């Protein structure tokens, strides 16, 4: 259990993200919650890549040693860019909403509620 600490951290980080999304009323903080959730998955992927005592899978001037798995790193890079793109779009929505309603509190802006 203790050796799996990084994976426990992944779970805790994901829960922090979900809690932020569910409990906060400020739109920008909710968006931060999504970002934290994305980070937790990034951390999860990087954690999966690790091999005991491994080095980065780059051969330039590398010591002859066992290397960690490269695929999760590629997936993580992809997900970081996707996360940046999603956050950018969400924040721009938030900017527009703030201009329309003058607030980012979701209790005050929900026009669409039945």
């Amino acid at each position, binding site marked *: 259990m203790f*050796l*799996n600490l990084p*994976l426990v951290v992944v779970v805790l980080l994901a829960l922090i993200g979900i809690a932020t999304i569910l409990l906060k009323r400020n739109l920008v903080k909710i968006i931060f919650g999504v970002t934290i959730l994305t980070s937790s998955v990034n951390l999860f992927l990087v954690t999966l890549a690790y091999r005991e005592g491994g080095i980065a899978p*780059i051969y330039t001037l590398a010591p002859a040693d066992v290397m960690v798995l490269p*695929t999760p790193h590629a997936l993580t890079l*992809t997900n970081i860019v996707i996360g940046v793109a999603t956050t950018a*779009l969400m924040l721009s929505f938030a900017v527009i909403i703030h201009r329309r309603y003058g607030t980012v509190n979701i209790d005050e802006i929900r026009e669409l509620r039945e």
Partner: protein
Amino acid sequence: MKRELSVLIILILGAFMMLIPLGISFGEPGHSAMDDYFIRHGQEQTGANNIVTAVLFDYRGFDTIGESTVLFTAVIGVGLMFRKLMRGDADENE
């Protein structure tokens, strides 16, 4: 009420997600055949020292174009949102 429900959801989710540290052991991947192939053959097949780049642009290049497209999509979307506000733009016809 809604708050309690949220806390309940978080607790249930947390309980289920604790399966992850119980089922996967850190530092000792069970299978690694695909990645070992990349580490062993990536350099010779693609000519790149950086195996992550080899995976990113060669073996999984199609993902990377999708990834660039996500960024492109987001920028187009952001531009769409701010299209009425962007000034100094001679050819905005409205």
